[in-house]
């Protein structure tokens, strides 16, 4: 997706999949709302900035746009398996060097009083385990390394 602006009034155009969308005039007000005129109709969006993302509410939808700092690239091809949220490791179900298949449970995490299973996203080999049973983990902590083919 490519985006560009036309000038001071923040009119916007967006190109997606080769198609051009013109989204009309947009006025960013000082508070947490943005008014957008689309096809002659004025509509309101709510915005808020958290530490690492812009949050937008528009037409009943909430969209979170993560701000990716320059120099950091998020990798989604194999690699590490991270804790989706803070919690405690209840059980480690695999060993280093073990071959696992897609969907296999690797580790059980307890968070918010519920058990969550961390599953293998692909077939591969466990090359490292970073926590033991009973350890507390923070959200985003790297739990294990999975080497995929």
């Amino acid at each position, binding site marked *: 997706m490519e985006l560009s602006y036309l000038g001071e009034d923040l009119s916007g155009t967006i190109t997606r999949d080769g198609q051009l969308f013109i989204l009309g005039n947009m006025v*960013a007000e000082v508070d947490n709302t943005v008014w*957008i005129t689309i096809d002659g109709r004025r509509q309101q969006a709510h915005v808020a900035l958290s530490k690492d993302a812009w949050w*937008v509410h528009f037409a009943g*939808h*909430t969209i979170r746009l993560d701000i990716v700092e320059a120099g950091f690239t998020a990798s989604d091809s194999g690699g590490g398996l991270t804790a*989706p949220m803070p919690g405690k490791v209840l059980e480690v179900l695999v060993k280093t060097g073990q071959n696992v298949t897609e969907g296999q449970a690797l580790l059980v995490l307890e968070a918010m009083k519920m058990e969550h299973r961390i599953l293998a996203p692909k077939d591969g080999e466990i090359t490292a385990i970073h926590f033991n049973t009973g350890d507390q983990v923070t959200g985003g902590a790297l739990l294990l390394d999975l080497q995929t083919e």
Partner: protein
Amino acid sequence: MLKRVLIANRGEIACRIIRACKEAGIESVAIHAANDSGALFTELADIVVELEGNTIAETYLNSEQIITIAKDVEADSIHPGYGFLSERAEFATAVIESDLIWIGPSPQAIIEMGDKMTARRTMRAAEVPVIPGEEVEGGIEEIIAAAAKVGYPLLLKASAGGGGKGMRAVHSPEDVREAAEGAMREALNSFGDDRVYVERLLSGSRHIEIQILADSHGNTIHLGERECSIQRRHQKVFEESPSVALEPDLRQQMGDAAIAAAEAVSFVGAGTVEFLLTPQGEFFFLEMNTRIQVEHPVTELVTGVDLVREQLRIAAGEEMSCEELQMRGHAIEVRLYAEDPSNNFLPAIGDLLTFIAPQGPGIRLDTGVRQGDAVTPDYDPMLAKLIVWAPSRQEALQRLARALDEFVILGCTTNIRFLRELCDHPDVIDGWTTTDMIERLWPDGWTPDMTGRILEVAYLAANAAEASGYGRKGKQSIIGNSSELETPFATLSRRYP
């Protein structure tokens, strides 16, 4: 009349009870853990006491400390809300033995209903139909043997259980050992009791529950049903009254069965008898909850009865004030959770940067949070209950859809959009709701329908806000000052809350 009620709970239900106390001219005492200081319920209460300790066991589950505080502040009664100590008979006993009024049923009734295996036996004796299954005395091997007798698919349930904890659906014998171990472990962690029993899984059934009120003057009445069929992993998501599945005849039969269940344990107070209703129209006792329930507002809106106020009256030894059952219109409650429905409903955390609740006719919001609060992993991820009332079911769904569209929560991922799409689903509109419908409709998980220009607008709005300097302290607006507007678009990546 009660004079000063200590609320042994937190969050939205503490707020609900404090408000009922205020309306009744009763003083309220809030107790809270250190990590709840400044929470909404502590601001509403007349007297606030901080609990010592860090864990839930040391704070909200610490009956000794709670009773000591109640005596210290000269409270005359304790309301347990739901969850926490609400169904702990030993707590109820300790409260009563400390010369305090327990706002709930007798410890004996809690014991007889609280242990699911005991309840099944009591109900059989009272001729209330129970789900085919096996009570299990023993450990893992006995559970596996009982499972073979009941047949598959089946449900493993913690005898001390509730809220879907310690529960597992098992579809084939290969999975039973691992599932039983998981259920036992979760039961042990959640309830300190790892006994698990086996029930046949009645798929395609509806979850119907009957609200009961009973006073100490011998009156036991039912207040109609709530249908709570739309569930996810046995957690209720969407609750309504009346149910499209109940004709007056069936309502009468189930109401009578619920009254019989309550009377079998000499129940006094507000309680709920849960049933499964099969597609063939047979109903089976599931369990009785001997407390006020999360979804009680649904009944309040269609019957006009203030259930918490009645609890306060009944606990004081007065007669309940309700008339014979009258149901009017239709009410629906949805539970807003801090969770990510597009990522297997994983609980979410974050700051409530924006929290704008819907308003207008027929809308009720029960919540314990407001803008600026943080959602932490310390407690249950339920943020709020949104309840709507309208003259008909169709209008109630329309009102709910409108209210969910208006609801703005930014800074923490929620299930609002998921609930909103439920309102439009043909099966929900037709009232064709079953306890397995979420898994049936979205077997591969749910993602939001983003047709239209939602995403484009989101990028533009975020960029406009960024460019205007909004939200960034000390950063000047760059509007109108550059021909090459720096756009952060290339550095934004999308996620679906």
